[in-house]
């Protein structure tokens, strides 16, 4: 990654800008990296299922399930998007649900009379292993992104040394809204509410010539 940083340095920065000399520890943890890998796996598998569903179906002894496998490809891609996003837990939970569907779909292919039973067994073992990784990543991401500790009470942090009531309106004494940020039309009082008028001391009907 430091190499990539130095390539982008050449492309996008001026010669004097600081250049990475040695990369430090990343804010990404192991669970983030695992989720990232699983996200890309979703895209890879999804693309294969979308492009060659017939071939996959035949290799597993699931002839006639071509449409279903293509749909699973779309599902994989859809799960890959959130898995690669910062809402990984959403994508991972979708992946776990998808794993269950995959296992259920593969189950009939494990029958003894399936000539491709060996392939189906390998596929089932692979899906089971990936399911374990999905569950581990989901649990890991959830545990590391949790809001830890009881919410603190910052009720003693007013930031107003003169107190709330002592501070209310204190800036009005010496601050005037700049002309480009004034709200004349909305703040102009109506004629019968006892308002003090606009900045020229006029009520709305007076300003409009209808008073």
């Amino acid at each position, binding site marked *: 990654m430091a190499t990539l940083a130095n390539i982008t340095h050449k492309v996008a920065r001026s010669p004097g*800008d*600081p250049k990475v000399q040695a990369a430090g520890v*990343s804010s990404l943890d192991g669970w983030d990296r695992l989720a990232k890998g699983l996200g890309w796996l979703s895209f890879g598998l999804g693309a294969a299922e979308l492009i060659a569903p017939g071939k996959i179906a035949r290799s597993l002894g699931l002839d006639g399930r071509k449409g279903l496998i293509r749909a699973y490809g779309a599902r994989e891609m859809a799960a890959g998007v959130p898995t690669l996003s910062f809402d990984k837990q959403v994508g991972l939970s979708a992946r776990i649900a998808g794993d269950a569907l995959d296992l259920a779909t593969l189950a009939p292919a494990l029958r003894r009379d399936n000539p491709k039973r060996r392939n189906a067994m390998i596929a089932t073992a692979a899906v089971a292993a990936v399911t374990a990784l999905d569950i581990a990543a989901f649990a890991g991401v959830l545990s590391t992104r949790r809001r830890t500790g009881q*919410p*603190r*009470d*910052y009720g003693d942090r007013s930031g107003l040394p003169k107190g709330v009531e002592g501070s*209310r309106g204190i800036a*009005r004494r010496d601050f005037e809204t700049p002309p480009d*940020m004034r709200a004349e039309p909305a703040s102009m009082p109506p004629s019968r509410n006892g308002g003090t008028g606009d900045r020229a001391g006029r009520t709305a009907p007076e300003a409009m010539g209808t008073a």
Partner: protein
Amino acid sequence: MKALVWHGKEDIRCDTVSDPGIEHPRDAIIKVSSCAICGSDLHLFHNLIPGAMLPGDILGHESMGEVVEVGDEAKSALKKGDRVVIPFTIVCGECEQCRRGNFSVCETTNRKKGLADKMFGHSTAGLFGYTHLTGGYAGSQAEYLRVPFADATHIKVPDGIPDEKLLFLSDILPTGWQAAVQCDIEPDDMVAIWGAGPVGQMAIRSALLLGAQDVVAIDCLPERLSMAAAAGAITIDFTSESVVERLNELTGGKGPQKCIDAIGTESHVGLSQPDTLLDRAKQMTLMANDRAHALREMIYACRPAGIISIVGVYTGLIDKVPMGQAMNKGLTFRMAQAHVPRWTGDLLRRIEEGQIDPSFVITHTADLAQGPEMYRKFRDKADSCIKVVLKP
């Protein structure tokens, strides 16, 4: 030197990088004494503007420190040893926009003006550590910072006041202040503020100082709401009550006159607000950039002829904003990145006079080397984290 470097989505590292040097006679180099993580840094952490950050970019735009080197053309304004806060906006102080006080749209300082012109129609100011759309300048979560246009891009601050009280002149205090100023607050106004993060907290205090009769803070995190209540705000936890119903109840059914968006692109996503789920899905699939739930809600809740002041950062395209409601209700929208230098002289005086002590918002202080971990903590709102200050 050490610096927090963006390597990719959610991948920030405390790297060793080469030291910055004077590149232009208007430059200065400062030794950073304090810097902070801003909520808008999380948008970059989440890579919400794909392609705008590149691996190797240094993050950070809230900083202060000591001048250690000055270019020839900046010597009239700065000298070695000066204590300065650095605004997040890089300003020339000379262009038409700067002369009008619209510093965040300075016409000169974005060194990638061509790119920004294509994206925004017209370029905005250069910013520290905030994408190549705003110049691709190295950020200030580092031991040293090169300050371009340093003769104009600095706030001199006196000795004897701790960093913690001054640091936020760089961004969140003037941003919160501008949010309130844009409302042109009248003494009988209710100001409702969506988002009680650091900018929202500053907006609450600013609205109070500017004389709002009532300030309402809307959030879902108990620690933030307790901090808002400490400044006299009425609090609404949107996970336990209807924001619109409560605001109507507080205003006799009329709605607040002034509404502030201190959230921006990353509105909370929750099952109780179905539009937020759709927004998140669109954001993931690059069909929209921003999650606009809070903006939709404030357009709905705002009193007709009221003002909506937006200082929360939006990044690009936004979907399903009810312009029909906004137009027919005659709402006024005011929005901008803060024109920091426009307000900082006045705000520094208010800090010195004891009208406001912005250090109240700091909940976590850590070494720069702990930056990657603190980004995670800030993102997760773990340990009641509201504002992180880093010490290089």
